[in-house]
């Protein structure tokens, strides 16, 4: 195994993960509770606790190229039981998003499934199971995925061969295309907010500023 030179530790990666996830990764003391409870652990190349350690050590390349971040089922068991109250699942999510940005896909099948899902939503406004499966098979070349299930499902009429398309599907597709064009880039939006703030209320892309605070009702309960 390669010797890691600690003087050359890249703290910027650790900081980036902490900033994006809102979690303090240095609170992790490596008790392993996340690994102990992780349902997908048996498929991981690095156990969750090791991923946390690698983030602490700034090992960006290893983390973002790992399979583990793609195989996380986001079940929140680690988050629930972390004695240091770190949202471990959120950290995994963050790493996955960062990996995607860097065009790193540790598990191709997961990426294919995600793309198939998003594409299905883009085409129809809703996810369409048969369509997702078809796209997934197309993207992965795994043509026999779950065909053993077909005899069970199709006669019951549970899987619609044709998708349920919504009227607003163009609107949904626009959301996705605006996302891909970088409309939601934080710096861009922040700059726009600042500009709008300078000009007075109502000028921002968001519009009515008064409605901004508190979208959730239950926050008080």
């Amino acid at each position, binding site marked *: 195994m390669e010797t890691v030179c600690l003087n050359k530790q890249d703290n910027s990666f650790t900081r980036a993960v902490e900033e994006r996830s809102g979690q303090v990764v240095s609170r992790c003391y490596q008790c392993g509770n996340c690994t102990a409870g992780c349902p997908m652990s048996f498929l991981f190349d690095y156990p969750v606790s090791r991923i946390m350690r690698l983030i602490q050590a700034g090992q960006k390349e290893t983390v973002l190229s790992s399979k583990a971040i793609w195989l996380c089922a986001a079940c*929140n068991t680690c988050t*629930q039981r972390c004695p240091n109250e770190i949202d471990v699942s959120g950290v995994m999510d963050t790493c996955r998003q960062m990996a995607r940005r860097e065009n790193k896909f540790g598990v191709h099948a997961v990426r*294919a499934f995600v793309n198939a899902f998003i594409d299905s939503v883009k085409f129809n406004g*809703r996810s369409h199971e048969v369509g997702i499966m078809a796209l997934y098979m197309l993207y992965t070349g795994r043509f026999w995925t779950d065909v053993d299930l077909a005899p069970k499902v199709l006669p019951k009429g549970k899987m619609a061969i044709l998708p*349920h398309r919504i009227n607003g599907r163009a609107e949904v597709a626009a959301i996705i295309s605006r996302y891909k064009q970088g409309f939601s880039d934080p710096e861009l939006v922040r700059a726009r907010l600042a500009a709008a703030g300078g000009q007075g209320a109502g000028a921002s892309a968001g519009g009515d500023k008064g409605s901004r605070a*508190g*979208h*959730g009702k239950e926050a008080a309960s």
Partner: protein
Amino acid sequence: MSKITLGYFPGCSGLGTSAEYEKSTRAVCRELGIDLREIPDWNCCGSTPAHTVDPVLSSAFSARVFAQGEQVGITDVITPCPSCLSNLRNALRHMDDELFAARVDALTERPLKQEHSIKSVLQVIVEDIGLDSVKARVRKPLTGLKAVAYYGCLMNRPEKVMRFDDPENPVAMDQVLEVLGAEVLPFPLKVDCCGGSMSIPARRSTPHLAGKILDLAGEMGADVVVVACPLCQMNLDLRQGQSRAAGLKYTLPVPYFTQLMAYAFGLSDADTAFKLLAEDIAPAFTCMSRRSDEIKAEEARKAVLAEEKARAAAEKAAKTQAGTETAAEKQPGGKSRANSASAAGGAA
């Protein structure tokens, strides 16, 4: 009972793989006086794949759903699907942050103007309708049915976001099943992940994780594994064959809790939609009625015994009373003992 009206988000799977959940949920809500107003032209919440890409994109899907509701005056929404619930709830939470909300608005170009709430159908039934109202509607109690409730990982987690029931040992579904008359076994893997969200790209996970859950339920002697999540249901029911191929010894029907409610309420087959389950539920009901007969016979036997006992006690008390009187006449010293004996008889 007063009717309540709530916005309704069925979720994509309700149109396909969880059609039975959708049908039974609507039927149960109708019975319980919950008027469901479906959000017009709703879109997919993005499920797990969307927040894998970016929480802003994921929230934008949710924001459009809320915006659609807002258009027709719906701000309080319920959904049967925990995955949708989790996404919609997280979107609201994230959008409390001004920058985040502005980023979402930049994608939807439809900023929300009102406050919204999103709850699960289960939470509304337990907290707003109440178990008493559920109990009052039971016509065909599930007496004799041995059930385990399986909640999955999303319903109660993360604790700070979901704020419903206990994150490690939830009891809401257990309580519903109990008032329906079922015998609910204490299932220790209630919140263990079944691997549902990874069942397609990581197929190996299903027999490993779902198999473990089904195996324990079978070993505990459950007739059914009751669920509230379409992803879990698909993984435990539809893919049960995959688990069995990998060594699972049991065959277990996996109905939604709403299906059992519809059944106990005495609703039609169209409402219970049991026929849409991959694993047939009939054997479970056979076990139930056999056990129910046994329970009834046992109760009858006990009633007879209790009656006999009461009669004997009454006779004995009468005799002792007579004896006391004679003893008291003969021997004053014996009185205290006799009194305590009669007191004991009275207590029995």
